[in-house]
């Protein structure tokens, strides 16, 4: 590990710990009441959903319009698992962990099942097939009434997602995605976005890496769905409509396709904004869609493009500026 990377790691670790401690202090001081805490939890769930979609759309370059479908699969699996374990005497944390792992695995398997046929097709077909899948999974949930409660919804889900565990799960998801994108597997995934034919011509097993990227994205969407289920303690198929998929996509596009930190910042902004602008809610989707079109015309790469935000980067920039100023003074 070279020193620059080590330094970055340590800085990031300290920042994450500081954010956690800061929020904890504010909660116990009563500055952050449960209303704000709820919003923070939804921000983190949106971060998980957006960063995972970013893997499929930003890094792998495959436009997915059914992310809410994977979220739904994970949410239901996680909820059903937790309901089954509710009276087993296990501690809540253990139940949550088992449920989320189950959610991740099932969602990833669903992702593979959809991905293997769909990823053989060109990009725009994938968009349509994932869109169709997102709609279909709702019909399926509605029809599996014995298991899912159908349209009536699923009640009795233990409410075991708290600020603490959602925070650490989110941190873990981001860490995994960051490391994945900065490994040989990640490079292979990005090479497919850049030029699929060239990637294949230099020996990248494109089908395998497409399915891998897609499955991991689906799996984490499932984790996001699971946390959602355990925070809300109620699920019904309507939660996972097409609009949910679009909202996640807007976060990814705004943040920058191919930038995890971009997705994080965009998730924070786009979760707080509608809360802050409650009285404008009629216009929210109008503005979202408007922003989407404007973004594509004027800054299709989003806030961050494919770049990642880093403290080192800020420092470097500061240093460059300082040196430039110094040089100027000398001259």
């Amino acid at each position, binding site marked *: 590990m070279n020193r620059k990377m080590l330094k970055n790691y340590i800085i990031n670790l300290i920042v994450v710990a500081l954010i956690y401690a800061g929020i904890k202090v504010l909660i116990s001081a009563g500055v952050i009441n449960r209303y704000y805490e709820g919003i923070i939890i939804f921000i983190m769930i949106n971060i998980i959903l957006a960063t995972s979609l970013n893997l499929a*759309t930003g890094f792998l*370059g495959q*436009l997915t*319009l059914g992310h809410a479908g994977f979220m739904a699969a994970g949410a239901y699996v996680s909820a059903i698992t937790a309901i089954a374990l509710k009276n087993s005497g296990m501690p809540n944390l253990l139940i949550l962990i088992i449920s989320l792992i189950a959610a991740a695995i099932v969602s990833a398997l669903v992702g593979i099942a959809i991905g293997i*046929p*769909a990823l*053989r*097709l*060109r*990009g*725009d*077909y994938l*968009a*349509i*097939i994932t*869109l*169709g*899948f997102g*709609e*279909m999974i709702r*019909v*399926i949930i*509605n*029809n599996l009434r014995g298991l899912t409660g159908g349209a009536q919804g699923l009640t009795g889900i233990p409410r075991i997602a708290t600020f603490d565990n959602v925070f650490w799960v989110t941190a873990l998801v981001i860490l995994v995605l960051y490391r994945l994108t900065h490994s040989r597997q990640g490079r292979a995934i990005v090479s497919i976005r850049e030029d699929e*034919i060239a990637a294949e011509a230099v020996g990248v097993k494109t089908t395998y890496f497409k399915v891998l990227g897609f499955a991991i994205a689906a799996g984490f969407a499932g984790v996001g769905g699971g946390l959602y289920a355990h925070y809300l303690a109620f699920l019904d198929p309507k939660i996972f409509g*097409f609009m949910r998929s*679009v909202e996640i*996509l807007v976060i990814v*596009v705004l943040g920058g*396709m191919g930038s995890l930190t971009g997705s994080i910042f965009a998730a924070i902004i786009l979760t707080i904004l509608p809360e802050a602008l409650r009285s404008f809610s*009629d*216009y929210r*989707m*109008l503005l*979202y*869609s*408007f*922003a*989407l*079109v404007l973004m*594509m*015309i004027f800054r*299709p790469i989003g806030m961050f493009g494919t770049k990642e935000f880093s403290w080192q980067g800020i420092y470097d920039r500061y240093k460059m500026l300082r040196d430039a100023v110094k040089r100027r003074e000398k001259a």
Partner: protein
Amino acid sequence: MVLFLQQLINGLSVGSIYALIALGYTMVYGIIKLINFAHGEIMMAGAYFAFLIAVSTNLPFVAVMLISMVLAAVLGVVIERVAYKPLRNAPRISLLITAIGMSLFLQNLALVIFRADPKIMPTLIAKHPINIGPIQVGTVTLTTLVLSIIFMVILDVFVKKTKPGKAMRAVSEDKDAALLMGINVDKTISLTFAIGSALGALGGVLYGITYTQVYPTMGILPGLKAFIAAVLGGIGLIPGAVLGGFAVGMVETISKAYLPTQWTDAIVFGILIVVLLIKPTGILGKNEKEKV
């Protein structure tokens, strides 16, 4: 047998509306390789135009229909000029996201202007059943079917026999070559959007009359089904869209008639996926490889 024939008529009427909308998808895809997600919303806009004209004037059905088609054509061209043209050389994914954004934008614009509750389409066509032998056909169903076929024939003649129609085919074959041949590519693309949008609006007007309601989200499902129809028939091909439209309408009606109705959408999507896996270019499509 009578029951089956009756269902066949039902299927044809649904299918003809899908076919009209599918034509717009296919023409646009053929010419700029874009899935125009906003096409379903153009259909919705067409229905609202018809509604507004019908409640504020006493014009007959044909006039209402034609004016709505013209207005929708203008809307389609404006969308193309404002949102799609600046992105003509951008990556496909950007263009696709723009189209999705445009679709949501129009939907929410309608939601804000007209509110969510459905508007009741005035009775533009007197409704009564007509008996053809043992089968009963509604006047609306019959009108839909006849109008769709008339416009499809007009389109076919236009594309094959007229100069702008031939230019459209040339541009969809090879944009650069068409440019070199002196064809005004921008104008041709706009023309394609205009025609596609007008046909979509016709679908919307007929849809509004058939189902008596006009509402902001009405374009989503028929839009999606029509898109499936276009892909099924072979996207980019005009006969493919017609074939696909009728096929989807039939499959839907037959499955509703003989299977539990709630699975219909799943069946339609299932068929799409199977067709794409076996023949990615659709029923009438030719296989082509990306140039290396």
